C-alpha cells in the first residue's frame, strides 16, 4: 500500500475554497463535506489524508513533518519564517499587509513610532528597512481599536477590502507586501514523497491558471 500524503488545511472559508481546488485537481475526499466535527479525512484511492487546523498553525504542522504539505497565508510564512518549501502561489485569499492610521494622523519622525500589530516580525523588518525606530505593541485581535484609543500611532495588519478600516475611521497608508495563500511542503517529505507532492502541485497549478 502506498503512503498517503498528509495535507493540513486552514479551518474556515479559505480552507473550504482551497479544498475545492484540491478536489477539482483530482484529490477529492467527499467525507470532508459531511456536517460533523471530525478533523481528519482520508481517501486512500486518491492517496490523500486531509486535516483541518487553525490557519496560523498550518506552517507548524508542515515544518515539523506532521503534515507533508499544507496551505498557509504568506502573512504567516513571513511572520514565523518556517523552514518549508513554498511550492505554489494559489492566488486565493488575496489581500495585503498594510500600515493604517487614523485619517487625521500626521507622522512625526522625531518621535518613536508606536505600532500595534499581530505581525511583530513583519512590522519590525519593514520599519528596519526604512531605518525608523519603532515601539511594537503586540496585540492578538481588534487591532483597529489601538489608534482610536491612543494605544498606538499606526497599525500593521491585513487589509482585504478596507471596509473595517473605513468603518473605524482609519485609512491605509502604505502596502508592505501583497498576501495570498501558498502551497507549502515539508523539506524532508518532499524528498520521500516527491512524485505524489508534485502531482498535487501540478493539479493545483492547473486550477490557478483556470481561475
Amino acid at each position, binding site marked *: 500500500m502506498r503512503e498517503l500524503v498528509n495535507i493540513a488545511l486552514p479551518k474556515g472559508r479559505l480552507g473550504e475554497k482551497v479544498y475545492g481546488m484540491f478536489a477539482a485537481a483530482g484529490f477529492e475526499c467527499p467525507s470532508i463535506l459531511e456536517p460533523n466535527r471530525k478533523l481528519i479525512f482520508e481517501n486512500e484511492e486518491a492517496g490523500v489524508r486531509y486535516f483541518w487546523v487553525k490557519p496560523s498553525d498550518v506552517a507548524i504542522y508542515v515544518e515539523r*513533518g506532521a503534515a507533508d504539505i499544507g496551505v498557509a497565508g504568506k502573512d504567516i510564512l513571513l511572520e514565523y519564517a518556517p523552514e518549508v*518549501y*513554498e511550492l*505554489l*502561489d494559489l492566488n486565493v485569499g488575496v489581500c495585503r499587509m498594510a500600515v493604517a492610521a487614523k485619517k487625521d494622523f500626521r507622522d512625526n519622525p522625531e518621535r518613536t513610532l508606536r505600532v500595534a500589530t499581530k505581525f511583530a516580525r513583519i512590522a519590525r523588518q519593514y520599519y528596519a528597512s526604512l531605518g525608523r525606530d519603532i515601539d511594537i505593541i503586540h496585540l492578538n485581535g481588534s487591532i483597529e481599536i489601538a489608534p482610536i484609543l491612543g494605544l498606538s500611532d499606526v497599525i500593521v495588519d491585513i487589509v482585504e477590502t478596507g471596509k473595517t478600516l473605513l468603518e473605524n475611521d482609519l485609512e491605509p497608508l502604505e502596502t508592505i507586501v501583497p498576501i495570498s495563500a501558498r502551497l507549502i511542503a*515539508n*523539506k*524532508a517529505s518532499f*524528498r*520521500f514523497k516527491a512524485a505524489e507532492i508534485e502531482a498535487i502541485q501540478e493539479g493545483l497549478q492547473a486550477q490557478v491558471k483556470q481561475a
Partner: protein
Amino acid sequence: MNPVDYSLKPEERVLFALRALYQKYGYSQFKMGKFEEYDLYVRNKDFLVSDGVITFTDTDGRLMALKPDVTLSIIKNTREAFGCVQKLYYSENVYRVSGSTRCFKEIMQTGLECIGDVDLYNLCEVIFLAAQSLQIIDERYVLDLSHMGVVAALVDALELTDQARAEILKCIGEKNADGVRKLCPGRDIDGLLTLIAAHGPSDRVIPALRPYCAQGAAKAALDELEAVAGVLAADGCAGVRVDFSIVNDMNYYNGIVFMGYIPGIPASVLSGGQYDKLMRRMGRSARAVGFAIYMDLLERLEDAARPYDVDTVLLYGEDADAVALSQAVRLLTESGRSVLAQKAVPEKLRYRQLLRFEDGGIKP
C-alpha cells in the same frame, strides 16, 4: 544482539558505527574544550547556524563562549601544510538556540572536516562518507547535492542589486518559482526556473541544466558536479541526488554543498559543503570540505530493537530475605536477561516475563 548493543539507544549505536567508519578512512578524532573566546564567533557570526551564543567572563577578564560550533575551532587549530590534507572527525556537544523553542539547547553534533590541498578525490571521499553515514542511520536515505557555482552563475547573470539577489537566493531555497517570477518581471529566467524545478538523479537533472550553463563559470561548476556525482555513482551510493534548493551562505560556502535526509525525521540530519571562502576569511589559503550530523534529531528514530523496557520483572514481598533475593536477581542477570526487581509492577512497563520471588525461590 549482544547485551552491550541491546542497552544502546539508536543514536548511540549510530555514533559508534560512525566513529568506526571515519577511522577506517584515516580520519583522526579532534577533541576540544567546552569554551572558546567569544571573539572567534563574533567575526564569523553569519557562519553559525543560529545566532545567540552563551557567553561568560573568564577570571582574567576575557569574554568566553560555550562553543556553538566546532568547524571554526578546527580551522583555528589547523596548520597549513602544502600538498596534503588534514582529516579530522569530531563528536562534540554544542550550545545554540534551537529553532522552534527559541531557547538554548545542548546539541550533540558529529562530523568531519578535510582541510588542506583538497582535490577531486578528497571532495568525493567526504561526500561518500556523508552518504555512508546516512546509510548507517537508514538505508532509505537521500543525500542531495547542489553546486553554489551553478546557482551563483545563473543569479549573477541577472545583474541584480544585493537585496534583490538575496531575495532570489531565498526563493531558490524555498523552491518558490512564483516568487522568482514576481521579482524578475519580463526577464529571461528560464534557467533559474529550470534550476528550481530540477531535482532527482544527477543523470536526469544535469542534462536539463546544460543549455543554461554552456560556458564560463557555470559550465565549470556543472562539470564539477557531474564529475563528483559520477564518482559517487561508481561507488554505489544509491541515495545521492541533485537538488539546487540547498543554498548555504555564499559568504562562506562555495562549490559543492549537500544535505542529507532520513525518512521519519522532518528536517535535514546532515549538512555540509566546501567552505574555502570561510578559510579565506580566517586568513587561511587552504581549501576545506566537511559536514556535520545533528545527532539530537536521531532521537526521533523509532527504537525497533527495544520492544521491551526490561526482560524480566521479579516481584518480591515485604518479607523477602535480602540475601536470597540478591542471589536470585544475580542468577537471572547471569542468564543474560535484564531484571527489574520491584514490589509492584510499575504502570505501563513493557516486559517479556513476570516472575515472583517467594519462599526463597523464583516462581512463575
